[in-house]
């Protein structure tokens, strides 16, 4: 197998010029005035106008690009059975510690590989007893996202994503590895664990968990136990958040999983439309995180300049829904691979802790009051702490990767 090709993001100047031409032609809608909750109908007009102005006049993509390029990036061809060969883009940073634990970080939507960049510098450090374990970090762009290739074919489902990510790790010489993931990434991680664990995938740490509710027939013992313990206030609040999401926060999901191509025309053709589509979630799904205009536009630009184009990211939603059983249903099974689950109280779907036990052997659990859906971006400290806790000395997944414990020496 040939080594991966070093990669630097370098968006052609012509694309930047075209973007600016389009921004200059923007037609804005007006807005209904609603003083009590200006985000209740979507992104407020003042926000979009401010960001559009900044995008046109001040945002420096080359500077954002240069910062991203400080992370070692590569591309490598990965064959997916029945579909073809895909160019997979990824960050790969090895720790100086020889026995660092191979960790794959899987992003979701509307995120990207960028989400690893706050935690990566800490994760590759460590290795001394008092510091916690060190990791080699691999963070791909999922196919159809970022700078990986486009799936191009119908039926490229979570199974194919799992295969591609697994093969990526193998291609880098990591036949055993662990995964950190949330959102769509967590779905893929579950399938990787299902198909390639525990032989290759030794453990997963998830900041999204979508277990099914245990019933008297599905999980009698667990159900009986649950009856004895009332839900905590936080768990009740979580269920209320979950209900709100499923009633009025899931329009994007309904659209992307049924008519992704129709939506795609606007996402590809209107930079301001794409901005609104993604920024709404950055706001709604995070816990009072103060997004800078540079952050917002960098995240949006990764979609705007993505190799597959901004509309391709909807494909997986469509495929998940049209899989039988659906991807969400299929991964609500007990997968016997060590599992760590972190719950952030301000995430979009927050389910009672006991339900997680239907998913696998829980070796690590944590909850945070502060933080939302973009855990590694909003609470990098918590994520690093969790991973060190889970995989370090005394942690529930200590030493899962046989010869790579994350510490210097043995």
């Amino acid at each position: 197998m040939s080594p991966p090709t070093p990669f630097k993001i370098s968006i052609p100047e012509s694309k930047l010029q075209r973007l600016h031409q389009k921004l200059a032609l923007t037609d804005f809608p007006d807005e209904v005035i609603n003083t009590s909750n200006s985000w209740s109908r979507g992104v407020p007009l003042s926000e979009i106008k401010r960001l559009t102005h900044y995008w046109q006049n001040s945002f420096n993509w080359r500077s954002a690009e240069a910062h991203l390029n400080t992370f070692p990036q590569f591309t490598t061809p990965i064959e997916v059975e029945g579909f073809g060969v895909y160019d997979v883009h990824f960050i790969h940073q090895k720790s100086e510690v020889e026995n660092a634990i191979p960790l794959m970080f899987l992003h979701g939507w509307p995120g990207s590989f960028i989400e690893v960049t706050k935690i990566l510098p800490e994760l590759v450090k460590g290795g001394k007893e008092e510091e916690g374990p060190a990791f080699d970090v691999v963070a791909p762009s999922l196919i159809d996202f970022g700078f990986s290739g486009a799936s191009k074919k119908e039926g490229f489902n979570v199974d194919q994503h799992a295969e591609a990510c697994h093969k990526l790790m193998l291609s880098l010489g990591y036949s055993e590895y662990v995964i950190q993931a949330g959102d769509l990434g967590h779905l893929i991680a579950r399938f990787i664990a299902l198909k390639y664990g525990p032989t290759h995938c030794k453990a997963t740490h998830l900041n999204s968990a979508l277990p099914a509710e245990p019933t008297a027939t599905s999980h009698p013992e667990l159900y009986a136990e649950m009856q004895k313990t009332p839900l905590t206030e936080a768990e009740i609040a979580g269920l209320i958040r979950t209900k709100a999401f499923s009633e009025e926060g899931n329009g994007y999901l309904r659209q992307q999983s049924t008519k992704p191509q129709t939506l795609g025309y606007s996402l590809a053709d209107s930079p301001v439309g794409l901005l609104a589509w993604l920024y709404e979630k950055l706001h709604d799904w995070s816990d009072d995180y103060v997004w800078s205009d540079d952050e917002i536009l960098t995240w949006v630009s990764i979609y705007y300049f993505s190799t597959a184009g901004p509309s391709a990211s909807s494909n997986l939603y469509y495929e998940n829904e049209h899989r039988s059983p659906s991807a969400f249903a299929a991964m609500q099974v007990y997968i016997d691979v060590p599992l760590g689950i972190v719950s952030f109280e301000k995430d979009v779907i927050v389910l009672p802790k006991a339900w997680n036990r239907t998913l696998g052997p829980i070796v690590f659990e944590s909850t945070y009051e502060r933080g939302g859906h973009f855990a590694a971006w909003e609470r990098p400290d918590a994520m690093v702490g969790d991973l060190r806790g889970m995989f370090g000395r005394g942690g529930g997944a200590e030493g899962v990767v046989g010869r790579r414990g994350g510490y210097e020496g043995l």
Partner: protein
Amino acid sequence: MAAIQKFQFQNSPGGVAKLREKLSQTLFPDELEDATWDYGVPLQDVKRVAAYWRDDFDWKKFEDRINKLPNYKASVTVDGFDPLEIHFVHKRSSKNNAIPLLFLHGWPGSFLEVEKLLPLLINEKQSGGASFHIVAPSLPNHGFSSGVKSRGFGLSQYSEAMHKLMLSLGYDQFACAGGDWGMCIGRVMSQRFPTSLKVCYYSLVPSTPPSPATPWTFVPFLIKHLLKMYTAAESEGLARSQEFQKTGMGYYQLQTTRPQTIGYLLADSPVGLLAWIYEKLRDWTDNYPWTDEEICTWVSMYWFSTAGPAASVRLYYESLRGEFPTKSGGYVPHVKLGLAYFPKEIFRLPKAWGSSLGEVVFEHEHERGGHFASWEVPEGVAGDLQVMFGKGGGAYGAVKVDKN
């Protein structure tokens, strides 16, 4: 009395020029290999219509076609809101005792949907058929009517605006015909103004299954359902309704929850708006052979609407809230109903369920047609109205017309 003025539509040369420039600058997405309409509008179809819109669409013809109709504007004030300018087509019959008929469009339609009906309904020569004075407005936030700047303008407000319009034209009693929002507004008007609105004709029938509370209808319903004793058309209709719920409701979930976000997408990209609407024109109709000209006419009605394309989706958000949300009403007394069933409607439920809505005096199961019945099968709709309101029809004499 609201001030009524004649209205003449004029293309905006600057607007058309900017549209053409944007169309030339379009960045198209890719498409999966062998993608069908399942994923949304195919790329080749959008490209074809976009090119036509930019290069071949006849803007003078568009203007003339609108101006051939008798257009007016009236100022209407709904309680709690600033005055609105309501645009409407008003075509009177030569017969003074003709029935005032309010024709209400929906989304993504427009007042223009009355175009094919007018010559069929204002045909005085048929004996036994009814005569009509037709009023076909642009709903607020649509077409050439004003946009509404404040929150809370829901179905109740739409119905009040339409009611006031009819009263301002001197029609103390009238009938209403519509599908989509037109039907929903008709339902709320029936609840709020039953002394004025006497008859409704719905081409989209929002019936619900009979409940155990009405055993005379519930037991036959149960038997029919358990024994699957629906007609072939009804079974197909039920399956179609379920499929629509499963795969066709993305736009609805978005527009009812995040109208402003979707607004940016529709206002800024003509191709985005085109795809958004074209998908419905195709999915919601019965193999209607839309010409590129027709598609561009319908989309231009939104792109060049007075309130802008983003405003038209606000009703979805408001429709779930306020005094008369979409699902309210149930059985509405005092207003006679004519129900038309079209095979390719977005939902098409068994005929027997129609009695859950009110006093059904006319029913017709059509062989052809879908969501835009007045456009697809205008002779079918016109025929229904003439039979329903004509001598011997279930709504004959229901609307008192001696004051006209």
